[in-house]
């Protein structure tokens, strides 16, 4: 007999086109296609409405609720406390809480580091740039890792940083990218979507973040610092099914050795020697002999 499917709800603060949300959304859609879960979701849920959406799903019998607690840390924990039968898996910068409030961080800094290594070897001007949303730890972390990776292979590399002040404004990210190209950058790390458009306009190269942007910008995006939500989701589902407490930090599943993040690149666009250096480091990260430092300070 078939086990009943688990009821999973996604509560997205942004529209699900937003790269980060799309990773969560995609992973849950995939699980639904695999016949493992029933997936329902809300998007564009503002902070004021967020706790209500959580509660409605909890009251509606969702067994696992996936979302983001960043803007509503206290309220989300309160909701979890009120609905002990539901597991919560929340993107958060905070700690797990109670019995059922699990958290995760978006750690694709390892992939960003590797991308930085490629960028450092490939830049001709010696200047690279990163365009981020706003300087929160998760954003800072990848940008710092990207720079660190570049610096490892090219210690004198110049790294520009721009923040667009909002999480979703591609035209603005594009302008920020163009500004960096004007300032000499020839490889852009697009923490935010829109950055690669600038690179495409000016015929320089770009690195994507979180999602695989190569199909969208062929010939421009040569590498992506991918983040996979699947391992986190699958573990949380397993925990919930097995009745193990879900109030834990799922972040380690984001690590490369767990398959949580990785670099995705286009062979033909990357020089072989650069690739070799990067691949060596990738192996070191996977086998644990190298740890990419975590630096959440605001990059300057």
């Amino acid at each position: 007999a078939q086990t009943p499917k688990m009821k999973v709800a996604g509560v997205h603060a942004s529209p699900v086109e937003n790269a980060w949300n799309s990773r969560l959304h995609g992973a849950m859609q995939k699980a639904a296609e695999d016949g493992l879960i029933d997936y329902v979701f809300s998007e564009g849920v503002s902070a004021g409405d967020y706790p209500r959406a959580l509660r409605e799903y909890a009251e509606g019998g969702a067994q696992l609720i996936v979302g983001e607690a960043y803007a509503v840390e206290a309220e989300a924990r309160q909701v979890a406390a009120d609905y002990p039968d539901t597991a919560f898996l929340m993107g958060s910068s905070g700690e797990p809480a109670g019995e059922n409030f699990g958290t995760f961080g978006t750690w694709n800094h390892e992939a960003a580091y590797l991308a930085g290594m490629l960028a450092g070897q490939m830049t001709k001007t010696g200047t690279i740039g990163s365009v981020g949303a706003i300087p929160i730890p998760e954003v800072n972390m990848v940008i710092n890792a990207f720079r660190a990776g570049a610096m490892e292979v090219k210690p004198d590399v110049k790294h520009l940083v721009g923040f667009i002040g909002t999480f979703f404004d591609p035209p603005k990210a594009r302008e920020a990218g163009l500004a960096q190209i004007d300032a000499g950058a020839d490889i852009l790390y697009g923490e935010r979507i829109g950055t690669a458009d600038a690179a495409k306009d000016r015929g320089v190269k770009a690195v994507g973040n979180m999602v695989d942007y190569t199909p969208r910008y062929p010939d421009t995006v040569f590498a992506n610092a991918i983040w996979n939500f699947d391992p986190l989701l699958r573990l949380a589902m397993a925990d919930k099914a097995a009745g193990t407490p879900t109030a834990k930090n799922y972040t380690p599943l984001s690590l490369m050795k767990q398959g949580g993040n990785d670099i995705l690149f286009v062979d033909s666009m990357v020089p072989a020697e650069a690739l070799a250096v990067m691949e060596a480091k990738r192996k070191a990260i996977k086998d644990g002999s190298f740890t990419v430092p975590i630096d959440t300070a605001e990059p300057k």
Partner: protein
Amino acid sequence: MTAVLDILASVGLWAAVLRIATPLIFGTLGALLSERAGVLNLGIEGIMTFGAMIGWLTVYQGGDLWLGLLAAASGGALFGLLHAGMTVSLGLSQHVTGLGITLFASSLSYYVFRLAVPVAGSPPTIEPFQPIAIPVLSAIPFLGETLFRQTAPTYLALVLALLLAWILAKTPLGLAIRLTGENPHAAEARGLDPIRIRYGAVVAGSALMGLGGAFLTLSAFNSFFPTMIQGRGWISIALVVFASWHPGRALFGALLFALFDAFQLRLQPIAGGLVPYQVFLMMPYLLSIAALVVVARKARVPQALMRPYLRGER
């Protein structure tokens, strides 16, 4: 200091200025046209959103880019018709109606978008307008690289600004529009139909607003996504005031604002936030308020702005 000068001397900055200014030029011209006839259209933010959505959707469904612009203009015009119906025919409060239309048009855009485009991982794209290097002119150093390597809608915006300036200042139609905005009773006494003129101005103005939105999805970017107008409509309302209702000055104001923005983005990587970016973003609003104070004393505001005109009332 030299860094600042470098930025100001860079081609990229000035090219960006035109690009950032384009949606504002469309929006400002649209709002200006409608206000010149005496109707404030606070529906602009929503109308731009709808234009961005419907223009993009048209192209996404296989339409030509120009068809997309046409769809955006028509969509804007339809909301303009709604605004005119409520404020010109019925004389309802212009700002309340306008805010209602903003709320309606933007939420409707998101809704229709979500229905029409199944949720995908990253926003689906279209092939946007490409920059056109105008032969000969684009070879001029500096000027050619900034002014003459833009996409078609940017050229369209510049042409429209000049055209509207011409129409308002030099043609009988422009005079009729101005007279209607100053005193609709006087217009009627000259055998003009203030109601039709207001309808025309609001509908045409809203079409321009729709184009401004579409620029964002068909040229500045290649996807639509909610909240993408990001207050550009409100900035346009401010710029109209700043420009004291002159298309030429509106063009200047839009470029000035875009210069702030482009400059600020370029200053950030080197200055690292000596001045918080919010201060730059506040400038257009504060300058507009200041401009209003100056302008109000000169009574340059169209005198019948926001005054409903109902036939046969006195």
